[in-house]
């Protein structure tokens, strides 16, 4: 009994780490850059496929590939905001108008990135095994790559938190999130900060994807599922609340693990149920202001 509970809890936490990471990325893009990035899942897919390519073709360890995936997805995100979303933001008559049109544009991006990936990698399923050795935690057995994944997810979260709290750029990002107009008058280069935020969001999606690729088989259409999970987590944590997203990720991981234990087919339905219930009862999210 105890082992079963431990089994469920640890499995939930392991999944929750990934959920937290990708949700913080989405939250950052919406909370600061005000783009509800529907193509977020595609950056996860990109991260996963780049890692696969590194490992399967060049023989580079997936953990080393993190250092390659991160900059690539960051640059893509940064350039996207600089060349597209920023000019959309400037030409939009109001903030709700920008939120609507940027969300729609990200739908377009979803289709573009997904189909470019199909052109490059084909529509088939890809997978590899890395560090799938069993590890025993108090009687519950897990593959080592899952534990490494959780470790990395937490480490990235902590590093990012310190970056936001302690550095000058982190301060500028927080200022831009609170009040972009005032931040700009106080000397924050708002265009640059927003682009960096969007890039960081893409980076976290990419890293999340690289970590996910160690555990599951990959497909160019895998992004949507993770986008939906990230959306749910972000709503649980409160749209725009980064700490809320981080904690929300672990909550959803636990819920998923419990429901999967009881009735495997209903995990996704349970996610949605919680999601819709929360939207109705407390749309600001558990940690929203």
């Amino acid at each position, binding site marked *: 009994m105890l082992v079963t509970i431990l089994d469920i809890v640890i499995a939930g936490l392991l999944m929750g780490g990934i959920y937290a990471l990708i949700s913080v990325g989405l939250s950052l893009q919406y909370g600061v850059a005000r783009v509800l990035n529907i193509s977020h899942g595609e950056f996860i897919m990109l991260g996963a496929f780049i890692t696969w390519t590194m490992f399967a073709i060049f023989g580079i360890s997936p953990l080393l590939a993190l250092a390659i995936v991160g900059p690539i997805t960051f640059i893509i995100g940064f350039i996207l905001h600089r060349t597209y979303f920023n000019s*959309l933001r400037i030409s939009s008559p109001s903030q709700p108008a920008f939120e*609507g049109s940027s969300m*729609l*544009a990200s739908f377009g991006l*979803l289709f*573009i990135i997904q189909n470019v990936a199909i052109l490059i990698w084909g529509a088939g399923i890809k997978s590899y095994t890395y560090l799938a050795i069993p590890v025993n935690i108090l009687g519950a057995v897990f593959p080592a790559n899952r534990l490494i994944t959780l470790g990395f997810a937490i480490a990235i979260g902590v590093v990012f938190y310190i970056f936001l709290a302690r550095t000058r750029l982190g301060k500028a990002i927080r200022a831009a999130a609170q009040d972009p107009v005032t931040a700009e008058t106080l000397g924050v280069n708002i265009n640059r900060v927003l682009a960096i935020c969007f890039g960081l969001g893409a980076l976290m999606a990419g890293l999340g994807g690289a970590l996910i690729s160690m555990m599951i088989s990959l497909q160019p259409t895998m992004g949507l599922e993770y986008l939906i999970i990230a959306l749910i987590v972000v709503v649980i944590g409160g749209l725009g609340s980064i700490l809320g997203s981080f904690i929300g990720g672990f909550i959803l991981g636990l819920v998923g693990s419990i429901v999967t234990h009881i009735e495997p*087919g*209903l995990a996704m339905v349970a996610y949605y149920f919680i999601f*819709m219930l929360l*939207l109705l009862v407390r749309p600001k999210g558990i940690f929203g202001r």
Partner: protein
Amino acid sequence: MNISLFTSKKYWIPGLAGLVVLILLATLPVYAPGYTVVMLTTVFMYIILTVSWTIFSGPTGYLSLASAAFFGAGIYAAAMIGGKLPLPMVIIIGGAVSFMLALLVGALTLRLKYTYFTIFTFGLVELLLYFMLWWEVNITGTTGRVVPSVDNTTAYYAIIIVFVITILIAYLIKRSKYGLALQSIGADEEAAAHRGINVTMVKIITFAISAFFMGAVGAIMASRWTYIDPNVAFNPLISFMPVLMAIFGGMGQLYGPVIGAAFFTLLREFLTSTLAKYEIGELYMLIFGIVLVVSIKYLPTGVVGLIQKWRKRLSAPKQVPVGK
């Protein structure tokens, strides 16, 4: 009522043009090859979805991604009652089921602000999809359903009739006081409430009306497809396409969504047949994505906005503007 209203050029030219087009469409199965009829059925399916999407989301600015949920509800309604009742009844019931679903969803969600509403409607489709997948496997023990079918020509006529009714209703709503109320909700919800408009009620009813037509068209398409499963009925693409088509066509005028829907459906038809030769038939979504991204940036009011701009330029008096 003023007689000159009906005799004025402004009304009878578009009216007559509409009548001619309608007669051409109605007699089409007589002289056109069967393929054209099938293709036009798909074109009109998207036109109805897009126009009915615009009825609600156009003036209010609430971006609904629930189209697939209502379309799918119509499909499942037809799958359950099809064959037991005549086709017109099936279509009406399909619409009514979606209408009721939209009333329920609207009552629950239309208090939410814009972004939340969009996420919620997006989630609704996936919730229904996963629930029906689970339901089919675990409760009924099936993976899909066979729908009693109708022939292509019957489906075509059914969809033309629903199309005409959709356009009429959309037009009447747009021209009425009710449509004005919708516009004012889109402009400033709080101000609209202060003017005595029952904001929530107007939103919910309009949402349900737009869902009715999506359900009706779902019921027709189910009868033509003959075999359906949850993945066909609740395909998220059905939610995205009307948005893409309406944005591209422009929502300022009724013909905008019609142009957008017709353009994209025909473009897809063309692309899938040409790209298929190079075995990359599915890549039309790449081109759709590019068109969407580009038109949001450079064509914010859609094709309609572009046409109006040209018209203004053509009809503008050619003189040097003096002062302001």
